[in-house]
């Protein structure tokens, strides 16, 4: 039996960027807030100290900061004719665990999405007509536009000390920045990071080809920085241990040392770590959340009554909790009705390898997670969808992120994978191999969705979440188009050999691809096609809000953390300025 605890005002599930931002911003309300985190407490000291944190085996191979599948995982199948089977080992994506969430081990690519990326349906139809949208594609707009989010994008960049160069300042296009970005009110808080050799070559090549290269906006601080909350960020060391690792220099922005310690200062805030939220409990009518049930580290069950519940877990956690708690109608792909689990999307990663001449030194170990040079010329709605036969696009880039050798010991094609000749091949390639990558948007489809698995249960006895996902023709075409561009750039950079391969296989859960999962609890203007209203409030249970990339109706060809943070800041304002003045009412437009 669960021990029933004294009621609190607000329960937050998840302590990554989204939960951390909400927890910090709501301190001023004076309300009693409890935040739950399935993993342990994390602080730079003692958790991310050098030299121990520069341990490739521990963090990058054994996944110290990632979800423990023994406790909780999901099942996967490519299509509804198959049986979903459990993801028993980590692979395709790496959801975070512990205070700071995936924000402790992210790379730091910190984007604002473009205007079209917030209105993919209407923006596409206005240009190409309705016929361009395939029958099975659930293409939908965000219920808010870029301009609604601009102040929150700005705020989040300030908090993170994002390093970059504006390409569109209040409508004025600036060469050297991203001229395709939506207008920003002001310049980035920090100047761009220093380019590595491959990036210099990429920039020159892209310009030669008539494209518009710019530095990737990076929440890896290019100089010492104090953010508007008074939190200091150190200057990035370019140490090459960033993605998958915590940052000992506090140069890579993370909730665990920015917003969350500020939430801790609020005497009305309490964090319960190593606490797994099992379920949101509803009243007898199923219309109001009354409490959350959770297990502490010792497996003891507690019921925490709360007036307001914010789900701020990773995509899968948010959708799983909604389905398991019966918040909103589950999606039925056969009829294309119901909303929870609808519009799951991902990203398609492509590109080419590029081997340069023998005297080349890229020094791949000098770098940071988000150190890169990028073009958006074929991203967002910049490609001609009508001519190319797909909707969406991809960012194309090169970067210098890690030289750690378990993960990086490339060899020229045709070289042996082991035995005689293998060592010679990797020694010859280590310094002169680089790549040009593409990060493609993925649209949402009827047949790609999340629901509860009928067979498998997690270690707590709950039905697992089931992921049904496969690549669709639209995405293959985008990937193939981007590959051609990547090849041209690699050749223009001067590569001796371009390693390029057509990819058309089914989606596999096995190799790592990207931790940019989206959808399943999307927001919109129509309760028939969205789980949440434009304020991230459940249409069905009005004292539940759900924040994260689970709200995105489909995925763009760039990283999701920027809009996740912006949405969290906007939600905090919505709660303070509107919801909490009339609790439990649907927030007015």
């Amino acid at each position, binding site marked *: 039996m669960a021990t029933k605890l004294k009621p609190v005002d607000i329960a937050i599930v998840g302590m990554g960027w989204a939960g951390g931002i909400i927890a910090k911003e709501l301190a001023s309300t004076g309300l009693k807030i409890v935040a739950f985190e399935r993993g342990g407490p994390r602080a730079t000291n003692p958790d991310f100290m050098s030299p121990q944190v520069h341990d490739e085996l521990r963090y990058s191979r054994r996944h110290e900061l990632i979800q423990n599948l023994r406790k909780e995982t999901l099942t996967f199948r490519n299509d509804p004719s198959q049986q979903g089977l459990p993801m028993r080992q980590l692979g395709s994506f790496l959801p975070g665990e512990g205070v700071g969430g995936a924000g402790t081990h992210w790379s730091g690519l910190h984007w604002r999405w473009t205007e079209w990326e917030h209105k993919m349906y209407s923006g596409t139809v206005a240009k190409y007509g309705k016929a361009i949208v395939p029958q099975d594609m659930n293409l939908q707009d965000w219920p808010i536009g870029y301009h609604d989010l601009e102040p929150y994008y700005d705020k989040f960049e300030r908090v993170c000390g994002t390093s970059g160069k504006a390409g569109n300042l209040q409508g004025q296009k600036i060469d050297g920045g991203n001229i395709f970005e939506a207008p920003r009110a002001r310049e980035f808080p920090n100047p761009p990071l220093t380019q590595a050799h491959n990036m210099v070559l990429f920039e020159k090549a892209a310009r030669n080809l008539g494209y518009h290269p710019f530095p990737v906006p990076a929440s890896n601080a290019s100089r010492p920085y104090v953010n508007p909350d008074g939190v200091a960020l150190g200057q990035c060391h370019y140490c090459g241990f960033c993605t998958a690792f915590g940052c000992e220099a506090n140069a890579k922005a993370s909730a665990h040392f920015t917003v969350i310690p500020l939430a801790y200062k609020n005497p009305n805030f309490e964090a319960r770590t190593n606490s797994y939220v099992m379920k949101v409990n509803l009243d007898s009518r199923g219309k109001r959340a009354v409490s959350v049930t959770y297990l502490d580290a010792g497996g003891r069950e507690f019921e925490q009554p709360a007036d307001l519940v914010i789900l701020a877990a990773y995509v899968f956690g948010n959708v799983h909790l909604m389905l398991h708690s019966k918040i909103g109608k589950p999606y039925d792909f056969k009829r294309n009705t119901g909303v929870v689990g609808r519009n799951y999307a991902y990203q398609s990663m492509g590109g080419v390898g590029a081997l340069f001449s023998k005297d080349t030194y890229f020094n791949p170990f000098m770098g940071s997670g988000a150190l890169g040079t990028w073009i958006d010329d074929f991203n967002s709605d910049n490609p001609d969808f009508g001519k190319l036969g797909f909707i969406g696009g991809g960012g194309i880039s090169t970067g210098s992120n890690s030289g750690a050798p378990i993960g990086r010991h490339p060899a020229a094609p045709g070289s042996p994978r082991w035995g005689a000749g293998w060592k010679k091949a990797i020694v010859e390639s280590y310094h002169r191999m680089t790549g040009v990558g593409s990060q493609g948007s993925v649209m949402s489809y009827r047949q790609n969705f999340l629901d509860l698995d009928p067979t498998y249960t997690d*270690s707590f006895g709950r039905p697992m979440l089931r992921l049904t996902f496969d690549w669709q023709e639209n995405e293959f075409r985008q990937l193939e188009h981007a590959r051609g561009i990547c090849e041209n750039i690699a050749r223009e950079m001067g590569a001796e050999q371009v390693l390029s391969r057509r990819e058309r296989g089914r989606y596999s859960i096995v190799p790592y691809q990207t931790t940019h999962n989206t959808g399943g609890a999307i927001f919109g203007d129509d309760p028939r096609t969205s789980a949440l209203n434009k304020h991230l409030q459940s249409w069905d249970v009005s004292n539940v809000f759900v924040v994260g990339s689970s709200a995105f109706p489909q995925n763009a060809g760039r990283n999701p953390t920027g809009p996740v943070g912006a949405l969290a800041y906007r939600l905090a304002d919505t709660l303070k300025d509107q919801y909490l003045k009339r609790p439990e009412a649907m927030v007015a437009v």
Partner: protein
Amino acid sequence: MSKPDDTNGKTVSRRGLLKLVGAGAATGVLPLAASAAEDSMQGMHHAAPKPATPAEDLPPVYEFFNGDEAAFIESVVDTFIPKDDVGPGALELGVAIFIDRQLNSGYGRGDRMYLQGPFIEGTPEQGYQLRMTPAELIRAGIIDLNAYLRIKYKSTFDGLSAQDRIAVLTQLESREIELPTVPKEVFFNLLYDLTMQGYFADPLYGGNKGKASWKMIGFPGIGGMYADKIEAYRNRKYMTDPMSIQDLL
């Protein structure tokens, strides 16, 4: 529990970090943001020091493998990465010891894997669906492969000639050998991955002795601070004597 510790410099000591920063500090790089907000317990944490009792320098002992298993693994890693004039072999770098330690660890025991049934063979896209931990899989695979080899070659793997070892691993990789309990490709891939990990991981796990693989490929170790070098060394060779975690403690 953390408690204030004001003795012998072990407190919060950013010793390791400051040592690591070296050049960074001189170029105005902040080693650690002095974020007052970060943690009110800041003054009460311990840097992870060297263990209080230094390990004695005795020859290593296999913790997990029995004699047959050790002989098998030693000859496999030696076949994957033999010593040659380019660089050291996996055996001399301690990769067999590395694999032994890994299989005896939480990882080897599957402590972060989902291992509940039902166990159903899925598609390749659905990934690993066996009930075996990595340790169980390696153990069963060794028995499987040696049983096959006893019939075909009248010898276990470690008794084969170098040429035959190469032939057998090549056949295993190209899926020409059927094993009764362990899927051949899963067994091969795990042996391969563990060998590569042991060859390239930080020496603290027992492999990559003397950071020899890092020296061989030109990876300058884990302590680099490159804010003042990334531009200066564009398209220029950069190498120092690589530092490992233990070097920097």
